[in-house]
């Protein structure tokens, strides 16, 4: 049954309640709250999305046909990333093995599989070896085995090399540098060959529930709603996909997963998830500087010792002299003046990095949030009718900065747990939607859990006076020597959104101007991501209260969203009337990184999925 809301999260819960009740009118409490908040200050209306302003009472929607076409599948998977595709492939492999019919449908918000995928990445092939042992013959794009591992602590001008002793988590022997987008695309082809129905370009916008509260499936997004929230001539309802089990693999900080946490109280026994933002570029460099197979990582400059983060630079071996490089900043940073994008741009000017990039040209840019919570932050994974896989619950090994292999394995284990139940003759469940707690049990017994348990204390160990150096010392002693067997489990600091200090307690950071050769401005970077959305649709970055940004975010924290958004979505511009500012949301720029939903100190921004097909057009990121 739905949970009674806590005051702060009332809006989110009411939306979940509404989902549970289907198309019934929103409870009166919600409308009053909204009206009260809006009428107290004359704020220009920003949010028009129907998740905030219900269509039930909206006169513009009177008489519009809201019936949805529905279809049945055995398993529906939300998200076409490594976890979702591995689950789909494993399900079909089992179906073929046991000669059973199985309809597996996968929906993905990107216009093509792989277009929203972004990662470093050094892939550990363990999960792939289990899933598709003959991946090499099948042409998987694992073309660059790691040949060299370089780790440095950077200062403003110099570099302190750190030896990667065998056994340290950042050693990459046996791993491959991949362009994860291409790998995911290849997984998509394998899935299609096995008969999985892939539907890229269609986003799962709503979770559907049975009468008994279990998950019934999902509904895809409506299309043809104008920017002001009214229906256009081309308005069409989304479609309902019903399934015995729905697997949610939305990646880090999925928007449906956020609802499910509340709906089924999945986070009551775990710590809140903590995150980082990763920004990435791909460069075509001078052939003389190209060292295929070289993986470089650094910590230190330009971040101070108390801000978690670091860089990566991988030399790919796919014909052209390409490097994939990027910068990660922990989202528990305290200074609201920090801009992860500009830290990334200025890091490239360090002599050690500039030496590789000089004479090259940038060909791609993107950004995405990633999980840092580790095993302490993994929620309950199963609920009646569904389960969570991949980076959505979060299986990333933080010191290794690898989450793909664990995400894939979680998808495979989910498929194996669900298969016997879904193909059973009778309905093997108390609820209409199948519950598969076996998935969580097998995951806890697998190498995923062993791995995450061993590294669980490394990230929290950074929360000490010495910051980065304390963390590295801890890693050296307790991980390298004791392999994470210490009996205690360190805690995180709480929500990332609560870590910001008020602007008046912090000093603005002087960032250098982009030089157009090594470092670039934000807007030209966003253009390179190929991101676009249908312009005439409600902004999918919804605000629970339109007045909070100026009254709180700008007043107390100097509008941190203008700095942490890697796509320039949020801008505080002067009001046309003269005095005061307003928040302008450039929703079309959004690259779906989810950082704003995570880091907003007022937790006022709720990222929902825009019309399917929109978003970045990453090619092999």
């Amino acid at each position, binding site marked *: 049954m739905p949970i009674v809301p806590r005051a702060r999260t009332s809006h989110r819960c009411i939306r979940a309640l509404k989902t549970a009740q289907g198309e019934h009118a929103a409870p009166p409490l919600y409308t009053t709250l909204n009206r009260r908040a809006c009428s107290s200050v004359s704020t220009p209306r920003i949010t028009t999305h129907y998740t905030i302003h219900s269509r039930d009472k909206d006169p513009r929607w009177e008489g519009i046909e809201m019936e949805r076409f529905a279809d049945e599948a055995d398993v529906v998977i939300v998200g076409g990333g490594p976890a979702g595709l591995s689950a789909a492939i494993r399900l079909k492999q089992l179906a073929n093995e046991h000669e059973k019919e199985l309809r597996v449908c996968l929906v993905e918000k990107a216009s*093509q599989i792989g277009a929203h995928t972004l990662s470093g990445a050094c892939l550990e092939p363990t999960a792939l070896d289990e899933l598709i042992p003959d991946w090499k013959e099948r042409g998987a794009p694992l073309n660059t085995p790691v040949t060299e591992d370089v780790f440095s602590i950077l200062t403003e001008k110099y570099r302190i090399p750190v030896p990667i002793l065998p056994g340290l988590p950042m050693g990459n022997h046996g791993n491959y540098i991949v362009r994860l*987008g291409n790998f995911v*695309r290849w997984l998509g082809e394998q899935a299609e060959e096995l008969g999985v129905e892939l539907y890229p370009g269609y986003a799962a916008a709503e979770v559907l529930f049975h009468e008994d509260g279990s998950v019934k499936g999902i509904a895809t997004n409506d299309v043809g709603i104008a920017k002001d929230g009214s229906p256009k001539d*081309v308005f069409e309802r989304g*479609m309902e996909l019903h399934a015995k089990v729905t697997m949610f693999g939305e990646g880090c900080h999925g928007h449906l997963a956020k609802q499910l946490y509340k709906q089924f109280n999945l986070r009551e026994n775990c710590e809140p998830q903590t995150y980082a933002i990763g920004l990435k570029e791909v460069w*075509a460099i001078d052939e003389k500087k190209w060292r295929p197979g070289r993986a470089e990582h650094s910590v230190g400059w330009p971040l101070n010792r108390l801000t978690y983060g670091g860089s990566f630079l991988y030399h790919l071996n796919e014909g052209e002299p390409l490097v994939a490089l990027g910068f990660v900043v922990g989202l528990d940073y305290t200074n609201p003046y920090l801009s992860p994008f500009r830290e990334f741009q200025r890091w490239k000017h360090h002599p050690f990095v500039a030496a590789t990039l000089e004479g090259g040209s940038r060909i791609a840019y993107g950004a995405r949030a990633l999980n840092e919570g580790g095993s302490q932050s993994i929620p309950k994974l199963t609920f009646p009718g569904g389960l969570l896989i991949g980076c959505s619950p979060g299986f990333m090994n933080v010191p290794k900065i690898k989450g793909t292999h664990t995400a894939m394995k979680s998808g495979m284990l989910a498929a194996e747990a669900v298969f016997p139940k879904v193909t059973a003759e009778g309905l093997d469940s108390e609820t209409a939607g199948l519950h598969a707690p076996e998935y969580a049990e097998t995951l806890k017994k697998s190498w995923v859990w062993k791995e995450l348990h061993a590294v669980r204390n490394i990230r929290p160990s950074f929360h000490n006076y010495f910051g980065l150096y304390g963390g590295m010392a801890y890693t050296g002693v307790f991980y390298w020597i004791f392999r994470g067997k210490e009996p205690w489990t360190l805690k995180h600091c709480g929500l990332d959104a609560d870590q910001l200090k008020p602007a008046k307690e912090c000093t603005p950071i002087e960032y250098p101007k982009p030089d157009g050769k090594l470092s670039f401005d934000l807007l030209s970077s966003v253009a390179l991501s*190929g*991101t676009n959305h249908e312009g005439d649709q409600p902004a999918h970055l919804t605000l629970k209260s339109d007045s909070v940004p100026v009254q709180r975010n700008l007043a107390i924290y100097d509008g941190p969203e203008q700095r942490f958004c890697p796509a320039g979505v949020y801008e505080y511009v002067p009001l046309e009337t003269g005095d005061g500012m307003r928040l302008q949301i450039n929703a079309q720029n959004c690259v779906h990184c989810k950082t704003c939903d995570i880091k907003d100190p007022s937790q006022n921004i709720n990222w929902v999925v825009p019309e399917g097909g929109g978003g970045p057009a990453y090619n092999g990121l």
Partner: protein
Amino acid sequence: MSGRVLVGVKRVIDYAVKIRVKPDNSGVVTDGVKHSMNPFCEIAVEEAVKMKEKKLIKEVVAVSCGPQQAQETIRTALAMGADRGIHVEVTGKDYDMLGPLQVSKIMAALAKKEDAQLIILGKQAIDGDCNQTGQMTAALLDWPQGTFASEVSLEGDTVKVVREIDGGLETIKINTPAVLTADLRLNTPRYATLPNIMKAKKKKIAKVKPADLGLDMTSRLEVLRVDEPPQRLAGVKVETVDDLVAKLKETGRL
């Protein structure tokens, strides 16, 4: 009249993607890049489907020329309401050099084979920007043409076309069979919704080769080199009007 309409749809690089020239300057990078249906082709499909919904015509056939991926574009047309598709398979060097002349030969041959009453194409493709295929097709078939159409009304054996021209709008009446090319304001294409995509999987796409139609795809053109446009140099800010005049004189503009 057969009541059959042929609609040409082209798979092009999505308009929002930043194009990159290949390192060997032989063309642009297309591998893995997001592609979608040419926006003007979407408008053409929408117009044909609207005619069918008004019962003015009986069948909409979507045609695309290219490699295997062209079938995705045909599927989108089928999801928008086309009845069946024809995939003309052109690959390799022939596909690299596929241009308006070759496509118009294909469309003309198919129009005769399918006994088409109308051919509707987009006015131009956003990659080639040639604006030639519709006109060449009409010439090869010796059919009348209504190009840059912003309004089309089928009236028995004739078509009234309002054309967008430099001076304004021109209204013409032409006999069918005819070739029309769609301009931006003709209509707003509908979305290809998921239930329709699923239904489209059951619709037929026939595969033919240009040789089956007795056509030769050799191009009379050879691409020598593709380059990016020159980098735009940064502007210079001046403080006063006198400075501006001095700068303009300096660069020889005044």
